[in-house]
């Protein structure tokens, strides 16, 4: 059924019904996704079974299948599972969003941040916390509103003659982000100690205390957005060749780019509303996938797997490193992502191939 391709063409192809149906796939990419998935399962099981109240592996499995003891079921299904699920979904959303924005901006440092989304969400949340003293849901809503409005403003400011150039988007995003960061800092210096502290925790990004009430809307959002971003993401490889080259091949460049900006922002929005702005997952996941799969294009799907693994292992590390304190996951991803970035700058760019 599946056959190898001649020298030069990478991957294998499956053809059905003569030539009517053919799907091309890269074995290496499939292996990478499989390994990432396996590692995620291992980390997931570890997160469910370890902690202040250890649950043995058999207890975890029994609880997941709905036949555990009531104490173990409560700990595994009601406390640890929603946190793990949220981590996986948020990581996947950030990974996909990052792969879309890095490809659109043709910049390995591209991420949803470049369209100003994160700084807008932060400003929205900090306004809500310090001025209106809102609860978890109001803060999430304010973050969403702030992020989406900022993304829209950046997109509109980057429009020139009906089209958006990648570098313009990046530069406008940096400018708008700088303004919003100042606003956030100003609000924090004016806030009461208690407000400033809760704002600071939100700004780091944390999975602490996430329950099914957060996971369900997040899962619905991903269910809707993932097929769109995977289907549209296929054409990102063409858009990377430049607008004219892609358009002359019949790729609807402007329409696809707008769709991807909207969906990529929505993915980042869903993640940020749930857990705050978690650093570096969106930046690191696509880059790590690029190196592991050694393929070109946007790598939306592998980035989702990588993002999920990165975030749930960061959260596992953050919870277990200093057992009593429950560090926010954003601190762990910041450390891991920062180390990765240093490696990228010193190692990869020195060898000349990006």
């Amino acid at each position, binding site marked *: 059924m599946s056959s190898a391709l001649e020298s*030069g063409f990478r991957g294998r192809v499956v053809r059905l019904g003569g030539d009517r149906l053919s799907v091309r796939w890269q074995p290496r990419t499939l292996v990478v996704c499989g390994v990432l998935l396996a590692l995620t399962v291992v980390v997931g099981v570890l997160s469910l079974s370890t902690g202040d109240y250890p649950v043995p592996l058999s207890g975890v499995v029994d609880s997941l299948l709905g036949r555990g003891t009531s104490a173990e079921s409560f700990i595994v299904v009601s406390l640890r599972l929603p946190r793990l699920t949220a981590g996986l979904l948020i990581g996947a959303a950030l990974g996909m969003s990052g792969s879309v924005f890095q490809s659109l901006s043709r910049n390995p440092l591209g991420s949803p941040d470049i369209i100003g989304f994160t700084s807008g969400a932060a400003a929205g949340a900090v306004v809500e916390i310090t001025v209106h003293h809102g609860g978890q849901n109001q803060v999430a809503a304010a973050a969403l509103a702030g992020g989406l409005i900022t993304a829209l403003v950046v997109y509109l400011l980057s429009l020139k003659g009906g089209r958006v150039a990648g570098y313009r988007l990046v530069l406008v995003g940096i400018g708008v982000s700088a303004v919003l960061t100042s606003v956030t800092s100003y609000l924090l210096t004016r806030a009461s100690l208690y407000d400033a502290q809760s704002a600071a925790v939100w700004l780091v990004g944390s999975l602490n205390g996430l329950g099914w009430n957060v996971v369900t809307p997040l899962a619905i959002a991903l269910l809707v957005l993932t097929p769109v971003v995977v289907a549209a993401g296929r054409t990102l490889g063409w858009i*990377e060749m430049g607008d004219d080259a892609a*358009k002359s091949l019949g790729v609807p460049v402007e329409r696809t780019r707008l769709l991807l900006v909207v969906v990529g922002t929505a993915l980042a929005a869903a993640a940020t509303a749930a857990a705050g702005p978690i650093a570096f997952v969106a930046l690191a996941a696509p880059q790590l996938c690029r190196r592991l799969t050694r393929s*070109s294009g946007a790598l939306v799907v592998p980035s989702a797997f990588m993002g999920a693994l990165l975030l749930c292992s960061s959260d596992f590390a953050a919870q277990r490193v200093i057992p009593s304190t429950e560090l926010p996951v954003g601190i762990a991803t910041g450390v891991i992502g920062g180390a990765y970035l240093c490696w990228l700058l010193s190692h990869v760019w020195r060898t000349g191939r990006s």
Partner: protein
Amino acid sequence: MNPRLYARDLTLAYEERVISKDLDVAIPDRSFTVIVGANACGKSTLLRALSRMLKPAHGTTYLDGKAITSLPSKEVARRLGLLPQTPIAPDGITVADLVARGRYPHQRLLRQWSRDDERIVAEAMAATGVAELADRFVDELSGGQRQRVWIAMALAQQTKILLLDEPITFLDIAYQVDVLDLCADLHEEQGYTLAAVLHDLNLACRYASHLIAMREGRIVAQGPPAEIVTADLVHDVFGLRCDIVVDPQTGTPMVVPLHRRHRRPASGPALTKPLTRTGGS
């Protein structure tokens, strides 16, 4: 009868800056058309309007008798190819995979790589002499090799009309001739209709079957180079005094600029062209 690709009554503009007004142009079928003119005279703009990259402020480009904007973009891409001035090779892509990108207009979500795709891409690489580079990374290649790869991608698109925007601008003289030879083969042996923007007037005269000379957004002359290229035309288009001699190799016109001592009195004030020029052509 109208040729497959022509345009009527074009007004071309970027924002408020009008490049061309009331422009009629036709690319004769099975011709190797070369568009020449001074920098910023609107050559590339015209090519972009012919390939629907630029929406005319007024007027229409016709492909096979229909307004090009009324056709679905994949349908246009199966009939008309454009190699832009500076396409970007994605990071870490091999020659074969880049050439395969040209199959996009023939593919669908669940028909990603048919046997035809594979055969046509292999043929395109063979025709452009890049078959032995198939599994090399594009960013490791020389400029000339890379240009051949891009032309292979355009060939894999399988359009009998191919527009080339300055295909030889960044190449040394040997590669310039090499790429134009390849174009001439496509034109003469495989019946392609080619339209290219070139800067080198002598090479244009050598290879073009149909020359279009532009100045300030208007066509000032068109026809076979031997019939239209005169010292007056070159002065009119480029503001340069020259002699026209016969190319000893091909018998086509060859432009030899006058010695600067002979040019000064003839052209009066040092420059006959406006000093303000913006961007590319």
